[in-house]
């Protein structure tokens, strides 16, 4: 055991000293110019103690000294795994759906609000997954289509008084058109160049929203957007339909859930279709795909447009829920967040993306008490995740999944 410890103590000491050097400027330098060491040393010693315990467990595990604990644990984990694979997928889907349906009855207002955000970002993440995960094009301006969708509903509703259900397909359509307009000149590029150009186009759309005072009211945003209206059957004095405004948060939640489920089903169906196969071949090797008869340009444009449609739908919903839109909601940081969710969860994997979104929305909420260190913890989590699970939380499974291949 001493032998094992000798191997790791050096990098461990260097790492802890490095952490000290990193912590001191954060905790020890104050805005009024005074320097302190007390707080840094205290925090650091806690971290030192904690990580030392972890290190000891790691070393002991390496020397098999912890067999009496590790064995039952791994056996239990194995048992869980076999039971989980024994149950068919639909059981898990049904269980997830039931939990999602009864969730707002138990969660408070705040919990439901966070859940709505999660569902909206799932829709966005699934859309971006089509572009990044399936077709393999790095898109850094994705949030612009979310903005186009949101502004379409906002303007059509406040200026022309159109209802939500009319505007929802129109939002998807305008986002799709915006996607095609941006995609047509840019998709001839590949890799890094495409990423830079999409970043540029994303900013252009945001700046247009910010400066076109007559149409978008500029940085002040658009106020007074109507929420979603629904017709509910009423049975008093005969059978009539009555119009309700969906102001209750729970109803919003169910609508967002529906949107996310529709998006998940669409992406799943697309993935396992001929179109999905074409996208994956483009991601793997564009020239080879072209030689095999895949019209790469059309399929890339289609991927881009599909991604934009999902973003447009989510955008219209966002506008209806917030009842206010401003260009600030559609900055590059948002694009980066959605991309993080997709990459963290696992590109091309629908359950992965759902988990990635939940993690990235829920984590900052959970760590709300840490206030200013929130982003630090967030960043550290990302780094650790990428070190230990580079393919994402739930990597995409790619073997023997397409229907016609089962018979083969």
């Amino acid at each position, binding site marked *: 055991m001493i032998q094992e410890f000798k191997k790791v103590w050096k990098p461990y000491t260097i790492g802890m000293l490095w952490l000290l050097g990193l912590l001191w400027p954060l905790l020890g330098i104050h805005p009024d110019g005074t320097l302190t060491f007390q707080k840094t040393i205290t925090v650091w010693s806690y971290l030192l103690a904690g990580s030392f315990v972890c290190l000891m467990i790691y070393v002991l595990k390496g020397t098999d000294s912890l067999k009496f604990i590790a064995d039952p644990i791994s056996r239990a984990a194995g048992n869980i795994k076999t039971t989980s694979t024994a149950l068919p997928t639909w059981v898990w889907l049904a269980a997830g759906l039931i939990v999602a349906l009864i969730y707002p009855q138990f969660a408070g207002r705040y919990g439901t609000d966070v859940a709505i955000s999660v569902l909206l970002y799932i829709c966005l993440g699934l859309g971006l997954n089509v572009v990044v995960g399936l077709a393999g094009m790095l898109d850094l301006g994705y949030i612009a289509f979310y903005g186009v969708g949101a502004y379409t509903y906002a303007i059509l509703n406040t200026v022309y008084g159109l209802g939500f259900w009319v505007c929802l397909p129109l939002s998807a359509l305008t986002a799709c058109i915006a996607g095609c307009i941006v995609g047509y000149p840019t998709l001839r590029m590949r890799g890094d160049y495409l990423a830079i150009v999409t970043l540029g186009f994303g900013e252009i759309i945001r700046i247009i929203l910010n400066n076109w005072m007559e149409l978008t009211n500029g940085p002040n945003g658009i106020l007074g957007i109507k929420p979603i209206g629904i017709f509910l059957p009423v049975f008093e004095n005969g059978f009539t339909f009555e119009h309700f405004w969906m102001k209750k948060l729970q109803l919003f939640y169910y609508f967002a859930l529906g949107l996310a489920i529709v998006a998940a089903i669409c992406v799943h169906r697309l993935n396992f279709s001929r179109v999905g196969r074409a996208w994956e071949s483009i991601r793997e*090797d564009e*020239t080879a795909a*072209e*030689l095999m*008869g*895949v019209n790469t340009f059309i399929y890339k444009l289609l991927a881009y447009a599909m991604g934009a449609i999902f973003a447009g739908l989510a955008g219209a919903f966002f506008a209806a829920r917030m009842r206010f839109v401003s260009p600030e909601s559609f900055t590059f940081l948002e694009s980066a967040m959605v991309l993080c969710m997709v990459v963290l969860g696992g590109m091309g994997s629908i359950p992965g993306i759902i988990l990635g979104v939940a993690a990235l929305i829920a984590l900052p909420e959970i760590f709300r008490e840490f206030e200013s260190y929130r982003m630090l913890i967030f960043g550290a989590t990302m780094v650790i995740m990428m070190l230990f699970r580079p393919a994402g939380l739930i990597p995409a499974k*790619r073997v023997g999944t397409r229907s016609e291949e089962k018979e*083969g």
Partner: protein
Amino acid sequence: MSTQPILELKNVYSGYGSIKALKGISLKVMPGEIVAIIGANGAGKSTTLMTICGIVPVEKGEILYQGKVINKVLPEKLPVMGLCQVPEGRRIFPRLTVMENLRLGAFYRDDTSQIMKDIQHSYEMFPILGERKSQKGGTLSGGEQQMLAIARALMTKPKVLLLDEPSLGLAPIIVQQIFDIISQINKEEGTTILLVEQNANLALHAASRGYVVETGEITLEDEASSLLSNPKIREAYLGE
């Protein structure tokens, strides 16, 4: 053998921007034959194939396939017409399974049952691919990847198969195996083959006719056997 060539290049010029890779290439491929293009690195062999497939645009001259000019035909339309290339360096889809790679070869076709039969046929032709059908393409060895690339191209049911350096980076015994398969495809399926190779000896033994390319121009054209016995060729390309 019919008198009309299935594939013909007439004085073709092409290149990458200001770099001119092909300076007037003319060649003919008759139906059912194996034609080899040999030459040194950078002579324009691969560019010739890429120009035929429309990946590199033609600047001047004409490419005729079955008597029709295909200069402006989009690359993705060519497999439908029966012209398919096995690109240099294999270029299989590394993260897709062997099965999916083959399925992509048949991308333009929609006759699912016939496609499944053809996939079975490729497993008979390349038993190793059958054993590894659910393995990812990137995990195959070099020789297996080359077989997969050829099998994938055959899934398009080509009339003319363009092969770019099938021996690249493979052990001699595997290279021999690949060339046996090439001859077999030519004999059994009647597929016309245009072969680009640095390994002149092997290529000329497999082919019926050969072209020698130097700096973007055809310098010599003859029966493969006469090229093999040509003292200049022996000195320049066969290392004697």
